[in-house]
């Protein structure tokens, strides 16, 4: 596996990368326009069908778990300690109270992370990096910039492999890479110094190779991969525009009369993230224990 790209046969995959880049921008914009927890939750739910269409439910859920961890942290810490809160909502042990204003603030922030994360995951997992590069070139982004972006995807597996080699080499020199946490952190230095140097040298050599492949040649360049904006892209773009207009309308004229954010919603979403996180934790611990038990046998 070279990148996060998941080759699948879906409508989202066949969209032009440029459309999808606009889509990411649209999601970011939406998450800022709708700065209300309930609306953001709505946005998040609305994005989910797209994940289903892209046939990425499982990888999406796996990658979103990590963002959820952030969400829980933000919601809990801000909910209790953020000084903007005045109205208490509910109390947990030890006199720690969640306050309405700070919970709104925290929810907006963490839902925004989830919404933008979903958009980004949708983009990255459905777009071949080379397509993205050639689409960028069509947008008159300099060729070398597109290449940098592309080779970043490519260099990750190379670094990973070098890291393994360096680790094995250092282990052979009696470096303890499997010790306790402190020991391991200390050992990062003898790991990363050679890794950095090796990567640097590789990139250096690659620059000669690129030069020999006419990379800096002036004149127009061509690409093997073709990306075209078709009717599907136009309908998708129109759809986004419509939603955007609706969001702005909602924001400007309806906010006064519409009050979706209630104490209950905030509390439930907080507890909801706790539950999901707790579940993840249990799963993780379970695997750990299982690994240990399995290791003994």
């Amino acid at each position, binding site marked *: 596996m070279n990148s996060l790209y998941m080759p699948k046969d879906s409508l989202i995959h066949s969209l032009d990368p440029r459309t999808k880049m606009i889509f990411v921008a649209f999601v970011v914009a939406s998450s800022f326009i709708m700065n209300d927890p309930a609306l953001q939750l709505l946005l998040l739910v609305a994005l989910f069908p797209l994940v289903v269409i892209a046939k990425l439910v499982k990888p999406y859920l796996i990658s979103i778990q990590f963002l959820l961890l952030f969400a829980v942290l933000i919601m809990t810490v801000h909910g209790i300690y953020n000084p903007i809160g005045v109205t208490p909502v509910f109390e947990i042990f030890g006199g720690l109270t969640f306050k309405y204003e700070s919970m709104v603030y925290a929810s907006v922030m963490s839902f925004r992370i989830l919404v933008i994360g979903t958009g980004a995951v949708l983009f990255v997992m459905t777009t071949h990096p080379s397509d993205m590069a050639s689409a960028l070139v069509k947008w008159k982004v300099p060729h070398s910039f597109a290449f940098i972006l592309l080779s970043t995807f490519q260099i990750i597996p190379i670094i990973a492999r070098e890291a393994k080699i360096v680790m094995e080499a250092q282990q052979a020199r009696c470096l303890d890479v499997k010790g306790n946490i402190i020991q391991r952190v200390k050992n990062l230095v003898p790991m990363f110094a050679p890794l950095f140097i090796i990567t640097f040298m590789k990139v250096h*050599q690659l620059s000669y190779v690129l*030069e*020999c*492949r006419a990379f800096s*040649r*002036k004149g127009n*360049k*061509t*690409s*093997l991969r073709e990306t075209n904006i078709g009717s599907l892209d136009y309908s998708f773009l129109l759809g986004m525009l419509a939603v955007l207009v609706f969001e702005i309308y909602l924001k400007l004229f309806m906010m006064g009369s519409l009050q979706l954010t209630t104490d209950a919603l905030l509390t439930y979403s907080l507890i909801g993230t706790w539950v999901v996180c707790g579940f993840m934790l249990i799963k993780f611990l379970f695997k750990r224990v299982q690994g240990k038990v399995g290791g003994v046998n």
Partner: protein
Amino acid sequence: MAEQAIEVTNLTFEYPDTEEPVLKDISFSIDYGEILGIIGPTGAGKSTLAMCVNGLVPQVINGEMEGDIKVKGMNVHESNVAAMSEHVGFVFQEPENQLSQMTIEEEIAFGMGNLGVPREEMLGRIKDALSQVSLEGFEERSPLALSGGQQQRLAIAAVLAMRPTIMIMDEPTSMLDPKGKNEVYDVLKNLKAYGMTGIIIDHEVERIAAYCDKVLVLDGGEVQMFGTTEEVFTKIDRLHELTLHAPQVTEFLSQYNQQFDGKLDLATTVKKAVEVYESANK
């Protein structure tokens, strides 16, 4: 003299951080369709010389250079590496450092794309290049998911697709096992069939003797010997002085002559040696 494929005259080169020149007053030329083998001990300056031919030295890798290099009648100084790459392909030693794309097909298309080859033509050329290095059917794979020998052949294919007239390979097989080496040399043989001019640097004199038309021996930055494969490899004493050796069969015939006072001609390939030996024993 008619225009030569590569013409080097009085080339002297010095890296910024070396005390004395790495290349000293080097002159040689090769004609179209010839394959030149460069041999010499490590540090002799072989790679540096090869990189001078396509302009990588001194344009990208800095240093002080004197003398003239003409490739297909063009002065390399007056051009740049990217422009030269249309005429001169360069294959490096490490296979994986030469690969930068996500799939094999794109790897091969990369150089062509930079040259502005239209997409329709690319597809044909990719097919050609892959069949030249016998990697057909691998188009969609990642270059990283290949063995070393396959990666090196891919690097060669990527250069071939740019359709250069001259191909330079700097120790293309030193990272490979015997099978990988054979694979690369078979490609080299094909190049000859395509009428391409080539320079190959290698330590294996047997293979150089079998595949090259001319040999250049470099030591201490100076041309010690230059001539046809026969000329160079039959001067065994001179090679030994330079701590190099001739192909095993040549060494054998020479030893035989010495020990048994034989008068065998020195041959450089197994096939020729058998003929020589056979006719002498009649």
